[in-house]
């Protein structure tokens, strides 16, 4: 039993880093939230107003009744402001808290406000939300519950305290397992799709109006090469399915990490889903980014051995 625990411990402790990933999490999620608010600001009435694109009468059915929505908060506030002004105030406040989170200023409170407001937004707009919103909410949740303000933050500068780091490897392990689960489930789901099985998935996506970009004509020409669309399509599934396994293999983890990062860069550049791509890149770098850094340092073993660890198993 002990031998079994030792082997499992060794396998899962391959990807262990210091605490810089907590800074990357805080900064990355804050930047993603700031970018989201700025890119949506001119549409907030249409996207989130009770008489917006999805009228409240319809969006109401998809909301969780045990969570607040933008409309319920507006009503709770007594409708002091017209709804459009309330929405502006709401999103400007969230933007301010996101900047505070970026700086690590009153970090826990800022993280709480960013997360809470995102829960409200997510609950109010389930019908128009997509993968980016769920990943952003997950990362905000982690930014709230983990000690993201303890390092390289204004809070850290103001009160120099010694932090207990014993749980940090376990915190990171949770993010790593979560990320592996995302790719595994997504890859598995794609295997069942006939466009992915046929090898036409990437071609179909590339040609949709919503994903057209400056690169589309070039890629359309490139995809004329025999079997290339199928190779790219199957490679996508292969990378996603293999990720949760190969990321733990010391000799292959850098390759699989770079492949998945490249996939997200491709999604950003070709499909224009830059917010989704950005948040996934942040998730990857937070969970496994130290793999890239470690390779550059021949004595990294000695460095990591100085970090107090709590074994997961």
């Amino acid at each position, binding site marked *: 039993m002990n031998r079994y625990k030792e082997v499992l411990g060794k396998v899962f402790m391959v990807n262990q880093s210091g605490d810089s990933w907590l800074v990357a999490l805080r900064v990355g999620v804050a930047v993603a939230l700031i970018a989201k608010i700025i890119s949506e600001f001119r549409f907030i009435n249409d996207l989130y107003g009770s008489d917006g694109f999805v009228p409240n009468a319809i969006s109401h059915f998809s909301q969780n009744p045990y969570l607040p929505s933008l409309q319920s908060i507006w009503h709770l506030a007594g409708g002091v402001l017209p709804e459009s002004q309330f929405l502006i105030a709401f999103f400007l406040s969230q933007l301010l808290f996101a900047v505070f989170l970026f700086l690590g200023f009153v970090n826990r409170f800022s993280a709480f406000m960013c997360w809470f407001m995102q829960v409200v937004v997510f609950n109010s707009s389930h019908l128009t939300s997509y993968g980016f919103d769920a990943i952003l*909410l997950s990362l905000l949740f982690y930014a709230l519950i983990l000690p993201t303000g303890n390092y390289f933050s204004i809070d850290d500068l103001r009160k120099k305290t010694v932090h207990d780091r014993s749980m940090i490897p376990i915190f990171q392990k949770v993010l790593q397992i979560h990320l592996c*689960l995302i790719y595994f489930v997504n890859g598995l*789901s794609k295997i069942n799709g006939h466009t992915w099985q046929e090898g036409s998935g990437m*071609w179909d996506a590339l040609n949709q109006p919503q994903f057209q970009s400056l690169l589309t004509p070039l890629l359309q020409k490139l995809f004329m090469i025999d079997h290339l669309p199928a190779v790219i399509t199957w490679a996508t599934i292969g990378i996603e399915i293999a990720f949760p396994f190969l990321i733990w293999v010391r000799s292959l983890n850098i390759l699989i990490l770079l492949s998945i990062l490249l996939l997200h860069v491709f999604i950003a550049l070709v499909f224009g889903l830059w*917010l989704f791509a950005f948040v996934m890149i942040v998730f990857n770098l937070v969970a496994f980014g130290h793999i890239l850094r470690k390779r550059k340092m021949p004595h990294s073993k000695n460095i990591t051995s100085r970090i107090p660890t709590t074994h997961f198993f």
Partner: protein
Amino acid sequence: MKNKILTTLLLLHLSMIFLGTGLVDFSKVPSGLHGPIAWYLAISGGHPYNFFSPDIPTQVIVRCYITDTNGLETMETFGETKNTYELRTNYLFQLLDNVGDPETAAKIAAHACFKRHAGARSVRVSIGRFVVPSVKDYKRGEKSSISEFYTQTFAHE
């Protein structure tokens, strides 16, 4: 002790995220737990993680033909440009197409058009799927097309 409690909570969190992926048949979970699990997933960002799957969806294109009081007709299209707003509206139309509810999609599009065009007398909504030719057909010169499958006209009351 504190660390053990924290580790247990984190494992519980991961279990919830796992449940949210849909890999486990949710109907086998005791019904009394459905509400709390859904609530937890809503606050922690749990998701089925089915991005671009099981298939690349055929994009839904919604066109509105707006007639004003002078009988002049203008057209608005949802799903042909790229910005955050369009991305989100596309997602909604896709969702409604997946559940086979073009009527609600038409109502939403008409509502948006009446709001944007204050003087509109009627709006005819046409919903179609964007058909991408296969690589083979594309090489032969076949172009993408829109296959209309639902149309409805709404008049201003």
